[in-house]
């Protein structure tokens, strides 16, 4: 008897649970948010957009060359091809869409149209409008390579530093 009652209760509960989304769609509809986990914290390798694929390929080419797997000639060919692919992917996505979680400041490309004379660029604030700028007018980073400054991010280096304390780049000897 107990079993029969338990079975009937189980069946009733299950039927209610299953039919509720159909009987009360509006109530259920609000619960959409908990269908499936959000994608925060997902594996970056799960991003299979053309941009991410091309960027990863560039990275991998670099690494394969560093480990000696790619010859210099192959490296050049692949580098050229995948840089164009990555650039094409970036252009296709338009400015402003960085990595999903990058939150980086992207320079407004239209404000500084490309010119024949390469403008020096600050890593954080983009190309400077001044044609002969030596430092970024917004953060003070050194723009061109110079002794005492990091060659990549332009931060001032500490005395006899072997690595940049800001970005970790090795200081050329």
């Amino acid at each position, binding site marked *: 008897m107990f*079993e*029969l009652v338990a079975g009937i209760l189980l069946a009733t509960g299950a039927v209610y649970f299953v039919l509720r989304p159909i009987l009360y769609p509006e109530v259920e509809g609000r619960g*959409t948010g908990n269908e499936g986990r959000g*994608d925060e914290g997902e594996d970056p390798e799960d991003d299979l957009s053309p941009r991410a694929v091309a960027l990863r390929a560039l990275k991998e080419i670099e690494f394969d060359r560093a480990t*000696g797997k*790619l*010859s210099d000639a192959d490296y050049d060919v692949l580098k050229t091809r995948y840089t164009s692919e990555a650039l094409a992917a970036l252009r296709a996505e338009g400015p402003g869409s960085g990595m999903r979680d990058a939150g980086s400041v992207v320079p407004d490309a239209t404000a500084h149209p490309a010119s024949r004379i390469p403008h020096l660029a600050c890593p954080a604030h983009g190309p400077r409008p001044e044609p002969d700028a030596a430092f970024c007018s917004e953060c003070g980073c050194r723009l061109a390579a110079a002794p005492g400054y990091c060659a990549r991010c332009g931060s001032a280096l500490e005395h006899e530093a072997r690595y940049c304390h800001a970005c970790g780049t090795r200081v050329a000897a």
Partner: protein
Amino acid sequence: MTLLGTLALWLAFLLGVWGALAGFMGGLATPPRPDLARSARHAVFAMCGALLVAVVSLEWALFQHDFNVEYVAAYTSRNLPIFYTWSALYAGQKGSLLFWATVLSVFGSLALALTSRRHRHLLPHVAGVVSVVAAFFISVMLFGHANPFQRLPYTPLDGSGLNPQLQNPGMVFHPPMLYLGYISITIPFAFALAALLSKRLDADWLVAIRKWTLLSWLFLSIGICLGMWWAYVELGWGGYWAWDPVENASLLPWLTMTAFLHSVMIQEKRGMLKKWNLALIIGSWLLSIFGTFITRSGVISSVHSFTQSSVGYFFLAFLIVAGVSSFALYATRLPLLEAEARLESMVSREASFLFNNLLFIGIAFSVLWGTLFPILSELVQGTKVTVGPPFFNQVNIPLGLALLGLTGIGPLIAWRRASLPNLQRQFAVPVTVGVFTGLVLLVAGIRDFYALMAMALGGFVMGTVVQEFARGTGARHRQYGEGYALALGRLLARNRRRYGGYIVHTGIVILFVAFAGMAFKTETEATLKPGESASIRSPYGWTYRLTHLGISQYDALNRQVTAATLDVTRDGTPLGVLTTEKRQHVDALGRPTFQPSTEVGIRSDLREDLYVVLGGVVNGTEQAVFRFTINPLVWWVWYGGMIVALGGLIVMWPGGSPAVKRAQAGYAVRLVEEK
């Protein structure tokens, strides 16, 4: 509790049918019907709940020793240890069907609950496929005379007890692991079908199923290794793989999934091989159902077969229907799967992966071919033939060795393109290591061609793996100035799939070396009276001397034990005492159940196992017949399996959080202008 169990089964069956209808309708309807989709999702959860109730009911009956229930009477007895009473859930045909369906519904619920929002459009179909498969398994129980809650017209005093060969710790873990592997393939399959049904055939489905495929690959690998361990310690023939049809059936999906895990990288990087990868997933799932069919039908004779029953026809019908319908669906979607296929060079990782796929599928084909050949032969030439280990060894050892060779070659070739001078530089060290290993072993007196090849190729692959780790670490050390230990750690942590994969390769090499070691197995039989000794010469050159100390008989919980004790020395050095037993299992009333079984005595070290079997006694005296076997390198199988599992875990480990990613800035990629 059998009434509740049966009700729960019926409920689960109806929920499965509803889940399938609602899922497919909800997914295919235009305009979309989110309410139906959600109902299907709820149906899977509810089915999972109902099946869990059924499992609890069955366990309840088992632990209550309700011998009026046919299943309980058939597989347990009052004096069966608790551990094995629990595992009796999947010891028999009926219970294991329930276990299958339950695990599938749990996996399905997890997949529905955990899949990220990006793939939500696939989920109604996933719920539908999971429901169909689960409903099929439940229907076999309900309509195939396989209801585990079936009652007997009378109540026996005690049950028949569990087959002694299943009363082994390995048997408690091996079937569930293997089932987990088999069953979880359904999830990638469901995602693949969902992608085909919804026509969303971009790369998204790939992301959704990659980890599930890895997970079932991992379970399957562990399950197969545990199965080998169980066969070795319990069956007493002194080996771990006999090309039994059921072993083959578990190997088949493993092979196709391993192929998939390699070729999926090409799709991720190059967008090629979409059709191939989908076909591999569908094929793996069909092979897992095929394995279930073989185990349960008795069509092909095997040590594993459950008792023959009509259940086999259900599986055959399901296999055919599922195979035809999924490949028909696949065929209609082929035009959507066209992808631009480009290959920068014939000499590239892509090409080597394709040949690796060829070998995996080739081995799978030859195993399947050999397994089915008896049936084929009967159809074609009217005579049934036996296809045993000699056949499989002859066909598969060369293929396996070729695959091992590719394991070493593939990682040395760069993705996209490679050129000759570079390849020379890449291959120099591994080839030297391989040749050197081969020469050393040749000088050491190993003349078995296959064993020599396996070990030399193993040396080559290890050369490759170590070189990969060394060069990667060196590159990090140079680029970021990390210390070598840190560089190695980060190399592994930040390229888990690549370097975790190399760890799996290491495990595979160890497994191959272990298999090669079995070429040097030595065995002898001897009749010894107490005080007499026998010697056996190990392939390493030393001699074991085993002295029979005597036989004792005593009763244990559910068995009467006859134990023979042997004193072991190696070249005169005492090593200890080995015991091997005959066990006559009895039920609670002292009545013998089953034939006497053998408990093997094993003394292991890294180099070899001394494996002692008590055959029986002569004239009812202590004079006993023994078989002594020396199995070289057996522990390498278990260690190899553990390393494979470890590598698989590393590959599977979830990716870094965004915070970690930001902290990693600082990799200078030179751009073209900076040359």
